[in-house]
């Protein structure tokens, strides 16, 4: 019965469509279904009649409720009125106290001259007869000159403090300007140093490449010299065989040239340009120009 297929019974019973929206109950019913539906309807009516019986509201309960309603009908107005009255009285009192105190404090802070300051608020404070105001020293309230002088003094102090703080602020601003200028100068120097460093690095690169080229030339000259020396010794041997006697050093270049020649040949040649201590020992800040660095590379 509680399955979806039996839904038509309840929907037909209540003369409504099923919740799924299908028109299960709209089509014509078979005789068996009609019989079943009629039986269900009678069963449901019987149940309804049973459930509708009994459970009448007792008169005592109803009378109690009516009495309660009548009591609430009367009670709320008086209670609300009382509440409203109390609230209004309390609000008025609080508002008057606040107005008086506010006026007194405003007059004191504004520094109104005594001749213009109305004495009414102080009179109202006296009229309040608060315990704290009933204590001695009533003269102060009759004439509020001490209060006014105190506030004037306080105001003068405030003005002095303000001027002092403004001076400090101006000094701080000036020092801040100086510091900003120094910072700009330092930044400019840094940029300049950076530029110089880049130029130096470029010079070192050029010097290294030139040193490499010179080392290559020197190696080639040495190999040429070696070949020439070999040829000379061979020529001397040939000349000896032919009967000519040629002594070493009897060339047209002379003695000084021979010495230079021997000195050059005796130079130790590094295998690679990077191994040259004079080149690798270069320090960038000491390099003035590419030409000088090339000379030191030699």
């Amino acid at each position, binding site marked *: 019965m509680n399955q979806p297929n039996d839904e038509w019974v309840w929907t037909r019973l209540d003369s409504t469509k099923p919740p799924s929206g299908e028109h299960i109950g709209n089509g014509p019913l078979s005789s068996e279904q009609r019989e079943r539906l009629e039986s*269900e309807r009678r*069963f449901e009516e019987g*149940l309804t009649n049973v459930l509708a019986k009994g459970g009448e509201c007792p008169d005592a309960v109803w009378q109690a409720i009516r009495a309660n309603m009548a009591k609430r009908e009367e009670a709320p107005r008086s209670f609300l009125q009382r509440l409203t009255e109390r609230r209004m009285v309390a609000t008025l009192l609080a508002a008057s106290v606040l107005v008086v105190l506010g006026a007194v404090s405003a007059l004191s802070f504004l520094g109104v001259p005594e001749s213009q300051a109305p004495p009414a608020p102080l009179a109202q404070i006296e009229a309040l007869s608060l315990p704290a105001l009933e204590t001695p020293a009533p003269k102060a309230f009759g004439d509020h000159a001490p209060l006014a002088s105190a506030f004037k003094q306080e105001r003068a102090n405030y003005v002095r403090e303000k001027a002092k703080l403004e001076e400090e602020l101006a000094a701080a601003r000036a020092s801040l300007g100086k510091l900003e200028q120094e910072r700009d100068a330092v930044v400019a120097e840094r940029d300049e140093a950076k530029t110089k460093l880049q130029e130096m690095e470029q010079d070192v690169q050029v010097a290294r490449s030139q040193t490499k080229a010179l080392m290559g030339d020197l190696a080639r000259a040495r190999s040429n010299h070696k070949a020439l020396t070999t040829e000379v010794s061979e020529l001397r041997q040939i000349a000896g065989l032919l009967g000519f006697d040629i002594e070493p050093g009897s060339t047209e270049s002379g003695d000084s040239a021979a010495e230079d020649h021997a000195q050059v040949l005796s130079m130790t040649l590094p295998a690679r340009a990077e191994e040259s201590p004079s080149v690798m020992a270069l320090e960038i800040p000491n390099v003035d120009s590419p030409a000088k660095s090339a000379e030191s590379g030699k």
Partner: protein
Amino acid sequence: MDEFVAAIEQYRNQFYRFVYRNAWDASVVDDVFSSAVLAAFENRDRFTPGSNFRAWMFRILANKCFVANRETLRECAPLDDDVADTLPALDTPYYMAVLADPEPFLEQCGDEVFAAFRKLSTAQRMCILLKDVERFSYQEIADILGIPVPTVMTHLARGRTRLRKELLEYARETGIIRPLHRPRAPEGIDAQRIQGSLAQ
């Protein structure tokens, strides 16, 4: 005030019966009814004139019943709402016998109908009462209980099914009814042809 009291008094038995049937604890019925009526009295300004006063009152009554039953539920064991699904199907010979003549069966059941009704959940009870007894539409019930219409239909279907099964169980145990077996035609015989020949 007089108008409100008159309106309440007109339906007070219906309102009271609704609480009486829905409250799990019978001792709180008077209190729940009183508090509902007084709540309606204090909030009568919120009632829109011209709208359905009964539906408005039933909404207040339903809320009060839910609250009261929630309080009762804290002290009692919760009802099992899925019992209906585990009970045997209704298309049994016993149920057929009941449907054949339901009035005497219900008379014989007597107060057992109320006992079976109390086994339903609050929502199922309210839906059945509002639909069958108070004759509200699905939409009105949905508005009163604050639930969708399909939920109302589900509560109705489950409540009615469970109510029937509870009564059937009682009837089977006490022997009020006997199963009704419908005669079947023997195999090989065309019942329609026989009926047609008999009619001729």
